[in-house]
């Protein structure tokens, strides 16, 4: 009974003070933050892709203009960086997939490596199909 009263008087939630840059000291923490920040590039490219498709919808001249704008060196550099970041996103995502998906066949669990490999295989197939769509009119 005594203990219970003491407990009730405690603050409901205690948040340990942490420095803002707590994560710069260890490689795994930097990697964690880097992985989380890939989402910024995911969203940025999603918007660029939307604008790309929109310019196609607006006619040949609008599309030619937009394509011309994509040749600006700053945008090429941005896309090069974004590609590396997106590859990092894909790889870390597929490596973590086994932890998020548990697939059972009968009552046997499909091993994590198999799930990760299926994800990579899907990535390769989808990328190949997209490449074919983009290139077979060359």
């Amino acid at each position, binding site marked *: 009974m005594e203990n219970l009263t003491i407990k009730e008087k405690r603050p409901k939630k205690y*948040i340990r003070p942490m420095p803002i840059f707590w994560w710069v000291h260890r490689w795994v923490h930097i990697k964690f*933050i880097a992985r*989380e920040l890939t989402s*910024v590039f995911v969203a940025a490219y*999603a918007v660029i*892709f939307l604008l*790309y498709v929109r310019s196609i919808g607006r006619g040949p001249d609008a599309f030619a203009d937009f394509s011309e704008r994509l040749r600006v060196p700053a945008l090429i550099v941005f*896309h090069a960086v974004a590609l590396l970041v*997106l590859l990092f996103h894909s790889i870390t995502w597929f490596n973590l997939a086994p932890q998020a998906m548990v697939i059972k066949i009968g009552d046997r669990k499909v091993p994590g490596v198999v799930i990760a490999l299926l994800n990579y295989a899907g990535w390769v197939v989808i990328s190949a199909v997209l490449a074919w769509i983009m290139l077979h009119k*060359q």
Partner: protein
Amino acid sequence: MKKHIDPFWWTLFGAGGALSALFLPALLFFTGIAFPLGWFTTPPYEYLHSLVSPWYVRLFFLAIISLSLFHWAHRFRFTLYEGLQLHHFDLIIPILCYGTAIAGSIFAALTLWNL
């Protein structure tokens, strides 16, 4: 932000993470690097137009774009919490993050609908 709707946001986050991981690197490689640098010629306009016109293609683009935005919103929300130790802004941060994703999705839906 109430705890019980977290699984909802997590589902959008997961779907967006998977779709973006599978589709975006190849799309970015062509539209952002290979075509602008002339490594490959940009496909003829008429072909691209016929490619993006069917309703199911536009719907699929909406899924990729919108879910990518929700993927960002969810991850960025927790990056701000953990990375910058902003736990005490746990009302305004989700509203800003998911609100941006919702606004972006509406913009994407209108754009693709009127294509």
